[in-house]
């Protein structure tokens, strides 16, 4: 798989052979096939997220990006292929268990409770075994804007603030692997840039990140590696600068 090796750290000459090397990949998908009601949407996806790196998964509508993330988080059972986390095959692991150990997925549409206040949304995360005070500390230190709005209902926050709240909730679990789906959905470019500044900050603290975007622009600035998905397959993978040229082709169906 030439595609696969392209996503691996260039300073590691070992190809993805059987042993040893796997430990450097926090997440690895091998030949993933997936279907909804027998309609296939993924046709053998290979994707690698090396430790302490940011990987961007790009592609047009309906390419299967969200499905790929759901498979990685244990929310969708693949019909074939393997999901490896830290070198261990975890097919069939319960999503809540993966989440408890430190895999955090922030879904498309953010997954916050619009009728609850910022504070109440954060309080929901106390199930991870931290007090509300600790969670608020984590959240407000990363996203000071939320502190000013702690009593506002989440539904009335701006789109960018809602996305911050979603990320704050995710950070409360102290994830080791963060999976983000279309962070930029419906947001102005300036806000998106601001959010990705925070993503970069999170990445610097050692969290590995897999992020899906439909449009490349901002995400390529923070990604270490990128992959382009079209029609349920990874078309190209590599360094962001290597891919920039291929991107327009992928969207135009070339």
């Amino acid at each position, binding site marked *: 798989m030439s595609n696969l090796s392209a996503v691996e750290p260039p300073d590691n000459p070992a190809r993805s052979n059987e042993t040893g090397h796997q430990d450097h990949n926090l997440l690895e998908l091998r030949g993933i096939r997936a279907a909804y009601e027998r309609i296939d949407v993924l046709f053998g996806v290979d994707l690698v997220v090396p430790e302490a790196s940011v990987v961007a998964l790009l592609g047009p509508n309906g390419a299967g990006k969200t499905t790929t993330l759901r498979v990685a988080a244990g929310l969708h059972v693949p019909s074939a292929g393997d999901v490896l986390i*830290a*070198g261990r095959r*975890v*097919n069939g*692991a319960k999503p809540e268990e*993966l989440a408890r150990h430190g895999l955090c997925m922030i879904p498309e549409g953010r997954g916050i409770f619009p009728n609850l206040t910022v504070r109440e949304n954060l309080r929901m995360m106390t199930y991870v075994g931290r007090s509300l005070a600790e969670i608020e500390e984590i959240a407000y230190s990363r996203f000071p804007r939320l502190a000013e709005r702690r009593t506002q209902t989440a539904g009335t926050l701006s789109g960018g603030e809602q996305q911050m709240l979603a990320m704050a909730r995710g950070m409360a679990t102290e994830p*080791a692997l963060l999976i983000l789906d279309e962070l930029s959905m419906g947001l102005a470019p300036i806000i998106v840039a601001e959010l990705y500044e925070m993503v970069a900050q999170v990445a610097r*603290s*050692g969290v590995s990140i897999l992020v899906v975007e439909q449009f490349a622009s901002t995400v390529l600035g923070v990604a270490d590696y990128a992959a382009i998905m079209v029609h349920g397959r990874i078309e190209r993978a590599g360094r962001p600068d290597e891919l920039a040229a291929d991107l327009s082709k992928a969207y135009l169906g070339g």
Partner: protein
Amino acid sequence: MIEGQERVQQFKQEIAEMRVRDPATGRDRMWLRVGVVLMIAGLIVAGLAYPMSHGTTNPLSQNDALALGLGGLTGAVVGSALFVRYSVAGFLRFWLARLSYEQQAQTDRLIESLKK
């Protein structure tokens, strides 16, 4: 970032020790299916034995039909036993988990009230 390193190390450790749903539960489901199939097949075989016996005056054939009917009955009984065993097992496990959860919650509440 040493702190982040530690977190990742811990994550790897926990993932390595995590209990992934083992194929055993798949085996449970297989036995459940075997039970259902046996039950139905046994009934059909037993049912077919009657016309077989009724349609002949040859005592040898009738004995065969008798044996077949008994075999069907045995299959159905064994199938039912398998079915009950594996469907109840799943239910009991769930019930036990719930019980122990409630026990835990009860204890927590007790400790909470004692603290005051």
